[in-house]
């Protein structure tokens, strides 16, 4: 191994030891959803951006980061709607994304749940009345839970998804 490469390896060990645990202690769990009882502590999430400004995506990314560490409650992001139990949707549904969102929902095996994240997903938020906007998420697919906020804090997203895993 060259000197630089081994330096990187040792530096990483030092960084791992100095960082220690960065995950913060958990806040409160969200309200337990009765529809999610069958999931028994395991929730696979597929995310669909139906037209958001990406502010909500940054917060979702934070919820899965080491600091908020939602994976410790049994939530995992997956690559295919076929693997998912829960669809998280952000943004007002734009005209072009409406059919894609519907298809993603239909590709999920039963039982399936939808969580609308952000004010836009709830009532189109700041984009209400825009010419490319088809409507809020509940106009396209049935919504089981909402996370309000523009954007919602990672804590709120973690709490809502913990309401699904029940942990």
């Amino acid at each position, binding site marked *: 191994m060259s000197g630089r490469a081994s330096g990187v*390896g040792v530096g*990483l060990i030092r960084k*791992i030891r100095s*960082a*220690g*645990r*960065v*995950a913060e202690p958990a806040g409160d769990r969200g309200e337990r959803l009765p529809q999610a009882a*069958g*999931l*028994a*502590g*395991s929730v*696979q999430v597929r995310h669909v951006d139906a037209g958001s400004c990406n502010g909500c995506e940054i917060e979702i990314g934070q919820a899965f980061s*080491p600091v908020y*560490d939602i*994976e*410790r409650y*049994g939530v*995992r*992001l*997956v*690559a*295919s709607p*076929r*693997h998912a*139990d829960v669809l998280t949707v952000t943004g007002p549904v734009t005209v072009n994304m409406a059919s894609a969102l519907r298809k993603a929902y239909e*590709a*999920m*095996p*039963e*039982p399936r749940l939808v969580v609308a994240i952000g004010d836009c997903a709830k009532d189109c938020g700041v984009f209400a009345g825009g010419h490319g906007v088809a409507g809020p998420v509940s106009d396209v697919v049935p919504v089981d839970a909402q996370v309000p906020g523009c954007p919602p804090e990672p804590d709120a997203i973690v709490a809502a998804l913990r309401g699904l895993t029940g942990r």
Partner: protein
Amino acid sequence: MTPWLVAVAQAALLALAAPLVVGVTRAVPARLAGRAGGRIAQPWRDLCKQLRKQPTSPADASMFFVAAPAVMMATSLIVAATGPFIAATSLFGGADLIVVVGLLLLGTVALALAGLDTGTAFGGMGASRAMVIAALVEPTLLLAVFALSFRVGSTDLSRIVAAGATEPARVFTPASLLAAAALAIATLAETGRIPVDNPATHLELTMVHEAMVLEYSGRDLALVEWAAALRLSILLGLLANLFAPWGVATSLDPMWLAVGAAVFIGKVCGLAALLSAGEVWTAKLRLFRVPELLAGSFFLGLLAVLASAILA
């Protein structure tokens, strides 16, 4: 205890422990990244939930898609039952090296056909990549173990492991280290770990194993994931038992079998932790560099065989 009972117990033990081994490979990097991480038993929760869900099937899929999870699971279970994991007694000749590699390849090919069968772009892409990797990995698997079987005079895995446990000086030479390195690289590739494939990726363009299973859901997905976990435990177990055969039961005495089972679980979990900690330091190789890595491991295996043949 009769050999049949031992085989069933071995398969059950591996099937039960395999998801926990996957849990270990997720928990170790999570801790190193400063996360609290999921529980070790989380993969079991995921499997139980998926087993309760309705599977869906793509409109154009045929029997290949439906059959692949069962074929993968069945071949893995046969290897788990007959292989030299907790007991190395050649009472049934099922654990021949060539049979084991062939059975594992059968599962790989079944999944690749299923990936093609879905008719999606990613399924076909994953299948072609998996075949490229399999074509380079299987010869290495064979060669690496041949380096040991040369010394023992048999390709029966149980006999190789038993010989290694009772008379290590006859089986192991310095060349065995080369063979161990070759088998370790082949194991990484065969089980879809970094640097060949990334099991945690969400980018379809970089997927190999995941791309083939994108269309599976519910019960079928659970079987595919369970079989994949089983293959990881099988290959790690083979690696551990072939090159560090200490603690393997060489008789069918229940006490020794219990010790063998405990030592085996310890070895596999240790290897899994080592493997996943190593992944923190490595990045995935660009796909076009993967054949270079695998050719390198093949060469190591070849050197090991030549060396042990000459030293024999």
